């Protein structure tokens, strides 16, 4: 009975969450001129997708987005984990350091995008995928650091002590004990970092060129002064969602219960 209520609740919120994307999915297969029709499927076409790839270079943007999002996580996650660990366990830099790190992300992007552009230009990192990756890594870092810090604080310090007396270096204790035990946090932080980069718009707009732009820039371009090409936007959104839907099957496995169970009294 309780189970039933639970599923009812989940189905309800799932519906609220899912209905808009479903309509988007539907719209992505409808010709632009019928996109606002209230019929479920007035006419079926795959033209929107075809157009995205042929006219809007969506393929290359998609690839850029994947590279940039994955790359920034690969760069940021280890750094964030290390910094978060230092904050959580060694209280490095005290409260000031924690808040300073976070404060770097408190400025609206519009205020730093030009300075950032100036910096990146000096190093020839504008119009380049590595440049954007680096920028995203830096943008992600504070958030990921904080999230992981929250998870690391929950790990019994005895475990690290055990590892250290077992001969592990602080790094070894971190790598072999702390990280595996905080897998849910790592998974969540990884996804978060990926998503932040995947969706970021302003830096992508300013720091990229025609060959290095990302999906959000491509989708924003569909909002033209001649109207919004909403069917193509829909197709683009559907494609943008795909990696996460695929990945969530995999991520969900890390978000399992009770990783420290049985370790300490």
């Amino acid at each position, binding site marked *: 009975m309780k189970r039933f209520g639970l599923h009812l609740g989940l189905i309800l919120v799932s519906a609220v*969450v899912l209905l808009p994307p479903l309509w988007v999915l539907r719209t992505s297969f409808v010709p632009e001129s019928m996109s606002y029709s209230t019929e479920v499927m007035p006419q079926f076409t795959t033209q929107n997708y075809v157009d995205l790839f042929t006219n809007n270079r969506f393929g290359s943007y998609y690839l850029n987005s994947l590279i940039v999002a994955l790359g920034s996580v690969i760069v940021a996650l280890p750094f964030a984990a290390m910094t978060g660990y*230092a904050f959580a366990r060694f209280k490095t830099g005290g409260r000031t350091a924690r808040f300073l790190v976070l404060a770097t992300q408190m400025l609206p992007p519009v205020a730093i995008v030009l300075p950032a552009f100036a910096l990146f230009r000096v190093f020839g990192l504008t119009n380049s995928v590595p440049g954007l990756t680096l920028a995203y890594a*830096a943008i992600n870092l504070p958030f990921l650091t904080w999230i992981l810090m929250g998870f690391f604080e929950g790990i019994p310090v005895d475990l690290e002590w055990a590892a250290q007396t077992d001969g592990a270096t602080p790094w070894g204790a971190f790598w072999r004990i702390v990280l595996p035990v905080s897998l849910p946090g790592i998974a969540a932080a990884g996804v978060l970092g990926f998503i932040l980069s*995947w969706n970021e718009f*302003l830096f992508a707009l300013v720091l990229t060129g025609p060959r290095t732009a990302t999906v959000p820039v491509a989708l924003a371009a569909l909002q033209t002064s001649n109207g919004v090409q909403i069917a193509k936007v829909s197709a*683009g959104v559907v494609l943008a969602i795909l990696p996460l839907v695929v990945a*969530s099957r995999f991520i969900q496995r890390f978000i399992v219960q009770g990783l420290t169970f049985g370790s300490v009294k």
Partner: protein
Amino acid sequence: MFRLAIDRDRRIGWSFAAPGLATLAVVMGFPLVYACLISISSLTLMKPQLQPLVGFANFATVMSDPLFWGSLWLTVKYSVITVAGEFLFGLGIALMLHRTMKMKPVYFAILTIPMAMSPVSVALIWRMLLQPNLGIANHLMETVGLPRIDWLGNADLALWTMAGIDIWQQTSFVVLILAAGLAALPREPYEAAEVDGATSLQQFWFITLPMLRPVAAIAVIIQLINEFRTYDLPYVLTKGGPGTSTEVLSFFAYRRAFLGLSLNEGAAAAFVLLVIVLGMTVAFFALLERKS
């Protein structure tokens, strides 16, 4: 002796933190300092030189604009509404997810979909859904006998509509983080609480919530920061209108910098925002610590 032992921890700590902090200092530090300089300079797009430095004049200019205070209040209101909504819904959903076994992967996949959309596309899509005359939302309302609603064109409603859309999307982040936080909680206290006679609700209140607090607080803060900086949604949905009813602060800063061509005033507005967010963050954690 004591000092030296502490030093070791300090050294290890800094060596762990160094790569991250260094990256941050280089990639974010320079632009931040530069932006800070801009905010006290006379740099505009028309006259792109920092000199002469004008100190707090830009801040004074910005703060003397009545629109600034209006939009500051709006931003605070908006952020509190959205973060509260996201947190409450997010927590509820994460808890439900946490308790299911069957179908969990399916729910999880569905519930995290919104975060995979960039805010610009979210805004575009919701504009389509909420299009007052042709959109599906009003069509459905009408079908079930409800009046059509002017979601974004009504000055009293626009902010709420925007907040609703924001909550719809951002809740998925909160779900992700809280679901992970719940997963990492130790199991033993729950067994103790069970035999101590705590109902599910009491367990939630007395065990889950306090133990989840470090992670939850961080989720709240991250969302608060993001909401304070909200830009894409009003940009696409309303451009700050109708009137000034959705003119949030980062939009104000944007306008100053790029339409008003006064990068210095834009930066000043942005730093005011930073100080407020920072203040709220520090206060929030101080409050949490005091309570514990």
